[in-house]
């Protein structure tokens, strides 16, 4: 019965979606809000990656809101984990073999370097704070899986995360302090295409990368720590 109702409902949703989707033209040029960003983005912000310009400069305030959503989710996760404090029963974790251990130890700095590169070059090439932060977090995931027992201190990840958020807000408030708008780009734009250019976009992307990387690392750390205490 429940399945029947679900499928009927699904059929209705599918019909509506199909009718609306088939009206949208694919790949046709039209009235786009992005035209202004594409045509004027390099002049106005100095970043050659227009997506970075949109994320950090044109929609910077939204990005601040989204980063705070991320922070709220991580905070809720920590609260839920801390809700039930089970007693520590140390089940012996079998260590990974020597090959895996050495391989992870070798690959970890390489992936970390790639993540940092992606964060720093966010305003020039595809990439940026969100992608680089995700790559950094996946490097820590590799370390947690390959080298069991090694663990970054919780205070460190929490501190870095707070530092990232604080940096973002401070950079935004600086624009207010010097008498302009929130997130005003107070640094010179420089020549588009150089590493040091585009005003405060690289700085904000670094803050975002720091925040996203430490946030996701903290989430993985919570999950793995919770798993290790499994009472068998």
């Amino acid at each position, binding site marked *: 019965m429940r399945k029947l109702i679900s499928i009927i409902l699904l059929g209705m949703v599918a019909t509506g979606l199909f009718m609306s989707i088939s009206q949208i033209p694919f790949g046709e040029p039209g009235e786009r809000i992005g035209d202004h960003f594409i045509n004027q983005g390099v002049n106005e912000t100095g970043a050659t990656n227009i997506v970075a310009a949109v994320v950090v400069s044109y929609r910077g305030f939204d990005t601040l809101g989204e980063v705070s959503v991320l922070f709220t989710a991580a905070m809720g996760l920590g609260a839920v984990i801390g809700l039930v404090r089970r007693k520590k029963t140390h089940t012996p974790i079998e260590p*990974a*073999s020597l*090959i*895996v251990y050495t391989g992870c130890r070798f690959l970890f700095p390489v992936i970390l370097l790639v993540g940092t590169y992606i964060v720093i070059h966010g305003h020039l090439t595809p990439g940026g704070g969100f992608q680089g932060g995700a790559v950094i977090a996946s490097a820590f995931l590799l370390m947690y899986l390959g080298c069991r027992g090694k663990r970054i201190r919780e205070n460190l990840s929490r501190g870095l995360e707070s530092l990232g958020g604080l940096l973002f807000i401070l950079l935004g408030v600086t624009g207010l302090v010097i008498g302009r708008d929130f997130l005003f780009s107070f640094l010179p734009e420089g020549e588009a295409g150089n590493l040091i250019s585009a005003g405060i976009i690289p700085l904000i992307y670094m803050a975002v990368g720091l925040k996203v990387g430490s946030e996701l690392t903290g989430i993985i750390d919570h999950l793995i720590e919770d798993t290790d205490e499994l009472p068998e």
Partner: protein
Amino acid sequence: MEIFGMILIGIGAAFLLIGSIGIYRMPDVYNRIQAGTKCTTLGSFLTIIGVGVVQPDWFWKTLIIALFVLVSNPVSSHALGRASRKKRISLYDKSVVDKTDEFTGQQK
């Protein structure tokens, strides 16, 4: 130079094809892991290097990517094989030799 790169890509693609046939044909997990690892490591290495030879601007980037594949692929396959051995997945009936207990015997 471009023809040399194309030849490299062709050899790599052939190795990848052989590897996928091996994954399809081999009888048990361990043989499949072996076929997959050896052929895909060499195949993807040659393909990536070939791309770098065809486009000389990208040569150093492709070299780094190829080295990364060269390190990560055997390690992950080793982890897979060890995990499946830990789960006591049985070998193929006609397997000849099994030295797992000999190597891990002193740990138990």
